[in-house]
């Protein structure tokens, strides 16, 4: 029997399956952080927790504004749509459509990051101001780091797209990139709901 199993079976490629498994591990990482947040919040007698007189004297207060993050949420959701649009375009073999989709997604991602950094400067608490500050900066910070990683991913894919590396048949990196971006987007929507909306 001439048997070598180097030929991949039909369907999803090895790389795509490996990438999906990687995403599963990422979901578990954020799952751990979210679980910590829920436990901390369930245990707290009041949310946001009470501040010490010293913290109040220093001008710490735990309110967060919802307007800018709501706009950021919209931006990120739109970028999810544009990157999906890029995938659909390259599936049809439309190089320039894909490029536009990637460019716009990258730009929106960077705007989101800038907005988040600006939002940090508007807050009157830090990571060491009660469990509220700690969880807020940990969750949004790790999400922001993933947005930055995702933007880098889109950047690499964009450079490869400019080099004409993707075709209607061969564009796995674009699909993987869009999956990662959707993941980052979904995590943000969950974060927005638990941090900003649920009082």
């Amino acid at each position, binding site marked *: *029997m*001439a*048997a*070598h*199993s*180097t030929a*991949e*079976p039909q369907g999803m490629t*090895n*790389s795509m*399956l*490996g990438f999906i*498994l*990687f995403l*599963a*591990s*990422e979901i*578990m*990482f*954020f*799952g*751990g*952080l979210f*679980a*910590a947040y829920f*436990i*901390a919040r369930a*245990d*707290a007698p009041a949310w946001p*927790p009470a501040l010490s007189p010293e913290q109040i004297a220093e001008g710490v207060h735990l309110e967060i504004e919802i307007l800018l993050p709501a706009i950021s949420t919209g931006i990120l959701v739109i970028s999810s749509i544009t990157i999906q649009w890029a995938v659909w375009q390259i599936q049809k073999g439309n190089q320039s459509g894909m490029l536009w989709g990637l460019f716009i997604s990258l730009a929106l991602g960077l705007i989101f990051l800038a907005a988040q950094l600006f939002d940090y400067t508007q807050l009157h608490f*830090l*990571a*060491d*101001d*009660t*469990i*509220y*500050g*700690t*969880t807020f900066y*940990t969750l949004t910070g*790790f999400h922001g780091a993933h947005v930055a990683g995702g933007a880098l991913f889109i950047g690499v894919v964009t450079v490869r797209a400019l080099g004409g590396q993707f075709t209607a048949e061969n564009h796995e990196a674009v699909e993987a990139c869009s999956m990662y971006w959707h993941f980052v987007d979904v995590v943000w929507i969950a974060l927005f709901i638990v941090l900003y909306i649920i009082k």
Partner: protein
Amino acid sequence: MATVEVPQLSGYHRPAVLDWITTVDHKKLGILYLYFTLFFFAVGGVLALLVRTQLAVADNSFVGNDLYNQIFTMHASAMLFLFIIPVWAGFGNYLVPLQIGAADMAFPRINALSFWMLPPAGILMFAGFIVDGGAADGGWTAYSPLAQQTGVGMDMWIIAVIVLGMSSTIGAANFLVTMFRMRAPGMTMFRMPIFCWTMLVTALLQLLATPVLAAALVMLFIDRNYGGQFFDPNGGGNVVLWQNVFWFYSHPAVYIMILPGMGIISEILPVFSRKPLFGYKAFVFATIGIGGLGFSVWAHHMFTTGSVLLPFFGFMTFMIGVPTGVKIFNWLGTLWGGSITFPTPMLFAIGFVSMFLIGGINGTFSAAVPVDFALHDTYFVVAHIHYVLFGGSVFAVFGGIYYWFPKIWGRKLNERLGKLHFALMFVGFNVAFFPMHMLGLDGMPRRIAVYAEGAGWEALNMLSTGGAFLIAVSMIPFIIAVVWAFMRPMDQPDDPWEANTLEWATSSPPPEYNFDSLPPVRSERPLFDARQGSGEGH
């Protein structure tokens, strides 16, 4: 013929060192994993001897309290994170592609990355001993506030464990893709060797549990370095939160540490009983069951915190004993009526079954909530973990080494030395760890550096220390056997044990590309079929 000459494309020969450093061959990486992990087994073993020396007599001042805390913490950290968990990745790397008839892992370069993350992490963790404040000393479980109070060695420990976790996470994804996608023609999922199945479930646990540990460690790092309040009640945090996220990883992790060992002895027992494994599918489903239930029992480490639902976690812990019991019956059913022979791998496999049974029973015993309240944090728990992880995993590691040594290195380890090794280790193990049950029932707490004269613990502690040194002595025949084997030529045939699985269908050691040709796979024992069917056995 044992060796295969691989033709070189050019006249250039890479130096051997460069070849090993740059290799992406799953077999070479597997061997690197084995060398690395056995090195840290030795390091962890020396630390264990220091612990036992300190505890040998009452009121001992061999090492001080602070150093003692570092030593037992680093003993456990080395054994768990740098030995047992990666040693299975070593066996898995070498064996899984061969057993499923593949040429390599799905992602050879990511495979190399997984390995090469280990040495920096190991060095970082142990470099704690030379920095101010010493190595991590909060115990391998790093409970807050213990883990908040120590020096920079703890931060190095945290980073090292995160890196080790990343290594095992990406390694897990690699194993899963390899087993899902790279199987030889005819090798259906239910014809995969049991070792592959246990690696598959282990990989799933690693993929889904290790990132949660990373999250926990990140939180601890933030608490220690950036004023975080996760585990600090002063700022609204919660010390039990650490225990929840930590054990959500670390309980599945105990199955990560034992399942591949069960797989190894499930390869050995049928071969030396001359029978197929009794209840192959039951074994597979029991493995999956352990993997699933493994996520629902973490809080049995936390009964005494008063913040977990005792009946639920007690019940689930009893439940997980059921699939484990199924496996004991698989192994006994395999032995039953077999033509049993007792070469060294078989001795270690039978040692595993008997010792792991004790570890399972004393574990289920402590799962009863009232019993746990009495035994929590005593030496009874130390006895339990060593019966499952030493009596279980370490016996399986050595069983696997004796069993696959002819395949990996083309030479057989000396049988007499192997039997001496097993006898010394088996006796030493029981002398070292059985008295800990009694010490625990007598109320000796774990992690204490000094106990007072007259507590009634002196005799048993001295006995236990003697056992520990006997285990150390048992390594001498093993080392002699290995050195002796390496001094001799490679003389092993493809299949010296008359085994069942595909790794024995190629030369010993296998060529870089693994197989010239594969026998047809029509059951989970393709080599048995080939020997019996066409009569052209190797």
